[in-house]
Structure formats: structure tokens, C-alpha cells
């Protein structure tokens, strides 16, 4: 059941992205920005919590989940250390993901050669 919920939640979030791509001709870069910002705002408003509770990884794996992570981190940090937490909380919470993506990108670029489509 947990898996089915993750499947459906993730699938629906991707469908929203697909409709935006096909209907508005937004580039994938814009879609990703939009999804992170949307996830962060929905997280800040406490709405994404519900999606997460229902969908689990279906809510955290899409980029909206990255936005949610930013909002969760920043809120926790503000609660812990006060106003200045607004400037550190988001990046702190997402530090692991970003560092890994940077490292793997660097490694992949060293190992692999560019390819034709």
C-alpha cells in the first residue's frame, strides 16, 4: 500500500510537470525551478506535510520534495536559533543532496565522454 501511494503521488506530480511542458513550452530548467519554489512555499504553508504523509517517497523524490526539505529545514532552524536561522536552515538541510550531486557530476565528467543522442 505504501508503495502504491508513493507511485501514485510521484506519478501525479510528474503529470503536472508534463502538462506544463506540453502546454506552456516551458523548458525543463524552468520546470525544475518552478517545482522547487512551489514545494518550498507549500512546505512553508504546511500543506506539503499532508502530501508527504500520504505519499512518502512519492512526495520527497520529485523536486517539489527538495523545496519541501528546504522549507522544513529553515523552519526548524528558525525555531532553534531564531531569526538568523532563516539564512542557514534551508541550505543546511539540503547540503547533503547538493554536495553529492556536485561530486557525482564531477566524477561522471571525468569518467565519461560526451555522446550523440
Amino acid at each position: 500500500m505504501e508503495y502504491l501511494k508513493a507511485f501514485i503521488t510521484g506519478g501525479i506530480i510528474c503529470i503536472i510537470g508534463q502538462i506544463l511542458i506540453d502546454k506552456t513550452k516551458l523548458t525543463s530548467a524552468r520546470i525544475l525551478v518552478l517545482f522547487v519554489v512551489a514545494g518550498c512555499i507549500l512546505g512553508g504553508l504546511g500543506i506539503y506535510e499532508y502530501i508527504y504523509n500520504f505519499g512518502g517517497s512519492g512526495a520527497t523524490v520529485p523536486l517539489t520534495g527538495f523545496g519541501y526539505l528546504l522549507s522544513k529545514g529553515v523552519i526548524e532552524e528558525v525555531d532553534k536559533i531564531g531569526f538568523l536561522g532563516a539564512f542557514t536552515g534551508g541550505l543546511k538541510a539540503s547540503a547533503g543532496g547538493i554536495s553529492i550531486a556536485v561530486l557525482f557530476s564531477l566524477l561522471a565528467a571525468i569518467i565519461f565522454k560526451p555522446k550523440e543522442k
Partner: protein
Amino acid sequence: MDTSESKKKEYQKSVKNLSPNSPIIKNCIWAFFSGGAICTFGQILNNYFKSLSFGEDNTALLVNIVLIGMSAVLTGFGLYSKMGKHCGAGTIVPITGFANSMVSPSIEFKTQGFILGLGAKMFTVAGPVIVYGITTSIIVGIAHYFLAG
């Protein structure tokens, strides 16, 4: 060719009529199943790492490591773009798509050197995501401080 504003408008209308639309239903089905599958895989990893009694934060991080690592390898072998051709948003929206957007320019711009090629171009897509993500989080943090604090 008449290039008056009214003719241009009429021309743009004809372009719309004569240009085939993207097969949106088919694309959405692909996006749903591929995106759903990636998320389910994330859930499987999540449960697995939890069963090894990693804490919640560490579990989330480990899931990301595996997904980003897989995306990097698939991108390197040129397979991620092949998947993306069919899956569309199904492979763009998940964290694997974010990783793909960092790995692909890194590989491609390696020929321009490690600093201004690889190092700089790595963030052509991911850069804006991080910029606006962090900015939004700061706004959320400040709003939380004043409204909830």
C-alpha cells in the same frame, strides 16, 4: 511577403494550425508511470535503509545518494536522455532529473576545461534551481519567524 502586424497575427495562427501538437496524453501516461516508478524505487530504498536502523535524516540522505548516483551513471552512458525522450517530465521532475541536469553539462563542457567548462557549466540548469530554492526558503524562514515565532 506582407509583414504587416495583422498579417503576422494571421501567420502565427496558421503556424498553430499546421504545427502538430505534442502527444500530451501519451506523454502524460509515460510521465505518470516512469515518475511513479522512480518514486516507488525511492520508497523501497527508504524502507530498506530504515530497516538497517539509520535515522530519518540519514535514510533520506542515503536514498538521495543512490538515486543521484544511478542518474549520474545512466547519464554518463547516454541512457538517461534516451529514457527522457519517452518519459518527459517523468524523468525530469524527480531528483534523478536534477542530477541529470548537473551531470550532462559537466560531461559536455569538459572539452572547455575543468574550471570555466565543467565547473561553471555544471550549474546551467541546477544553478537557478538552487538560487530560487534558497531564496524562497529564506523568505519562508523570515515569514515563519514573524508569523509563527
